[in-house]
């Protein structure tokens, strides 16, 4: 799975390019997120436009990144952008929409950190 990373206005944008964020790729995705946090990136936007399928391991990677940020000193958050309807529905089923804020566009997600 290709994961593109960009920085804009101090926010790190992470873009998984595959349509499935599942057990086959979740370990790489998690490692990428944790590595970015380890390098000091604390404002993360995950752009999920390409992702139409996510399972518990993909969601677990997001949770893992969020928890890592929250247990270290200083402000920081993982925010989601352009979440596709199937992923929205799964976030709602397991109530992770209560801990992840979603935005309609990447720009809005970046703005939310300003």
């Amino acid at each position, binding site marked *: 799975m290709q994961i593109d990373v960009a920085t804009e206005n101090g926010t790190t944008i992470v873009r998984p390019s595959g349509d499935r964020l599942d057990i*086959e790729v979740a370990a790489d995705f998690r490692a990428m997120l944790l590595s970015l946090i380890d390098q000091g990136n604390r404002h993360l936007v995950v752009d999920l436009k390409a992702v139409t399928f996510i399972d518990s391991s993909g*969601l*677990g990677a997001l*949770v893992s990144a969020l928890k890592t940020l929250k247990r270290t000193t200083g402000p920081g958050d993982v925010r989601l952008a352009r979440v596709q309807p199937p992923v929205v529905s*799964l976030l709602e089923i397991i109530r992770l929409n209560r*801990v992840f804020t979603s935005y309609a566009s990447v720009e809005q997600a970046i703005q939310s950190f300003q």
Partner: protein
Amino acid sequence: MASLTVPNRVESVRPATAFLVQAARAMKVPAAAEHVFEVAISEAITNAVKHGRSDRDDATITCDIELEDRQLTLRIIDGGRGFDLPKAEMPEVSPDKLETLSDSGYGLPIIQTVFPIMRVVKVDGRFGIELGLKY
């Protein structure tokens, strides 16, 4: 009944999931049109990969699907050791308790949102899980 046997490895999760979802849709099971149906099946096969004999090169997972009297039954047999199904409780998710938020344990509850019937079975001497739903 339709059946598929795949090698027990992570790369088998996607094709095995696609096989079961397409079979259920061909059987015109209403729930199969829902996205969460596909996720639930993917979770069940993922569990089989995790708990089956993936340490052996020749280990396989067999997926069966059948429809009878508006009851859909899936059996995912991994040949692992028998196990007791843990209680499928959704982990607590609260913005006020992020420190205790779990990054795992969502799979079984997702399965159970789709399949009210879930039990451990033994088929031809191999253990696995049986999932069922009536409509």
